């Protein structure tokens, strides 16, 4: 394992019939980074995350996550990652605490009570521990979802469109939470997103995926410097996406 890169993707591809959802993706993410993975709808971002979280078998290629091979060491990978899919859902008939207890046990925490309270406190959600999930607002569900993803103190946190459906207040709160997580525990965050304003405020590195191919990957600072004639990340993104930029 290269200790500098907590995610090391090598020629990773996923093919459905004749169509490449992800095409020979090469990508490295350093430990402690907040990585923003950008791309249009259907670009292959979710497919990439599905493969990196071992939910989906790649057609070819390989990847190391936290030093473990996603193909041969799936269980070891999953022990070291947290995952929050788009539109967080948990068991509605169970309370937040019961949901967290279940996922904590599946993550290998045998007596998770204290850790759950600690995480709920960290996320400012302790007051919701006994509420049924079905009664919680979208923003609160998101927080419980994050709690579920970080209970076992993963090295990498994968987030798929985490701001989807949140109001501006919820987005701000989520940003604060993720920045604190990254700063206090050094957790690497890999985030699929459309919200470019959030990428500017949070991410240290970005990657742009278009039609399954990675067309740009660099630090946010370098990207902005390189496209110094563009006024915002949105314009940089559009420039890259529209092919006005050559790698």
């Amino acid at each position: 394992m290269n200790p500098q890169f907590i995610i090391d993707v090598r020629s990773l591809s996923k093919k459905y019939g004749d169509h490449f959802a992800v095409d020979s993706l090469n990508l490295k993410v350093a430990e402690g980074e907040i990585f923003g993975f950008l791309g249009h709808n259907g670009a292959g971002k979710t497919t990439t995350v599905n493969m990196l979280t071992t939910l989906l078998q790649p057609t070819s290629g390989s990847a190391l996550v936290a030093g473990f091979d996603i193909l041969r060491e799936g269980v070891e990978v999953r022990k070291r990652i947290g995952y929050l899919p788009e539109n967080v859902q948990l068991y509605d008939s169970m309370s937040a605490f019961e949901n967290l207890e279940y996922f904590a046990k599946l993550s290998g925490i045998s007596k998770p009570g204290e850790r759950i309270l600690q995480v709920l406190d960290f996320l400012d959600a302790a007051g919701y521990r006994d509420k049924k999930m079905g009664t919680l607002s979208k923003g609160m569900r998101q927080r419980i979802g994050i709690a579920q993803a970080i209970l076992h103190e993963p090295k990498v946190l994968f987030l798929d469109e985490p701001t989807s459906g949140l109001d501006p207040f919820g987005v701000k709160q989520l940003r604060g939470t993720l920045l604190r997580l990254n700063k206090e525990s050094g957790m690497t965050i890999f985030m699929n997103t459309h919200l470019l304003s959030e990428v500017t405020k949070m991410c240290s590195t970005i990657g742009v995926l278009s039609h399954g191919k990675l067309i740009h990957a660099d630090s946010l600072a370098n990207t902005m410097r390189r496209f110094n004639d563009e006024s915002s990340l949105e314009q940089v993104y559009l420039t890259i996406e529209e092919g006005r930029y050559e790698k």
Partner: protein
Amino acid sequence: MKNSVTIARHEIQSLFRERTFILLLAVFAAMTLASAYIGWSSQHTIDQVYIAAAEQMRQSGKVAPPSPFADYPHLALLKNMMIYITLIGGLLAISTGYAAGMRERKAGVVKLLFSRPVGKEEFLLGKLLGIAFVLAAVMFLDAAISLVSSAALVSLNVQDIIRLFSFYGFSWVYLLGFALLGFSSALVKDDEVVALLIPIIFWVAITFVLPELASALYPTGSLNPTLPQTDILQSPTLQTIHGAVYPFSISEHYKETAATILNINADAPVHSGILNIVTTFCWMLLCLAGSSIAVRSFDKTRW
């Protein structure tokens, strides 16, 4: 294994919170309670008719023959349970399995669950343990209800009690097949309605259609645990149909074995008893294999 136990516990907890399951369980328990009384009542009526007839014979100076019902087995009053188990028990089992298979999909947590260090085999084992435990608990509850209600109506000896618990144990094997069928269907079919319809179709075929054909169109074959009173298999056509369908008529095999266990089918030949038991176990194992295939082909990223 640890994860399987966690999943099984979660399954049990969740099932006992499901309204449909609780409703079906309540109906099933009520039917169990009623079955002993219904069995006792019909037996009591027959006895009363005999006593009245014997009394009339005595008054007219004739000697009344001994009651042909005097040696009727004690557990015969539970014979309706065989029907309730094939009918309501089957539906309860399908509902249990279907709920277990659909739970993660409906909750939208399939991806979350499999992003944890949980293998498909652990998931399958956890679900199977959960379903098996819930059905065992239901059967135990029913056995307890039957024991108490029967003991209140007739005197039961130790052998009767062993037979009673064996009957519910064997019923558990039979019902487990339906539960696994519901579970598999919920995992592999995209459409929730179709996923429920498939095990129901199997249930209808196993409970009604096959017994009708296997008993050579004996009209009450699917509901009546007793054999036809006349030899309807004399017709070569009916005999051919019977020969072809009977080995697959799982509910017939179940009912005949159950009747033997309850000691109300004492005349059954040994070879047919073995065939009945083997077929019922094969049914359960076939459904278990189906569940294993369903879990293996389950797409973790779809829901």
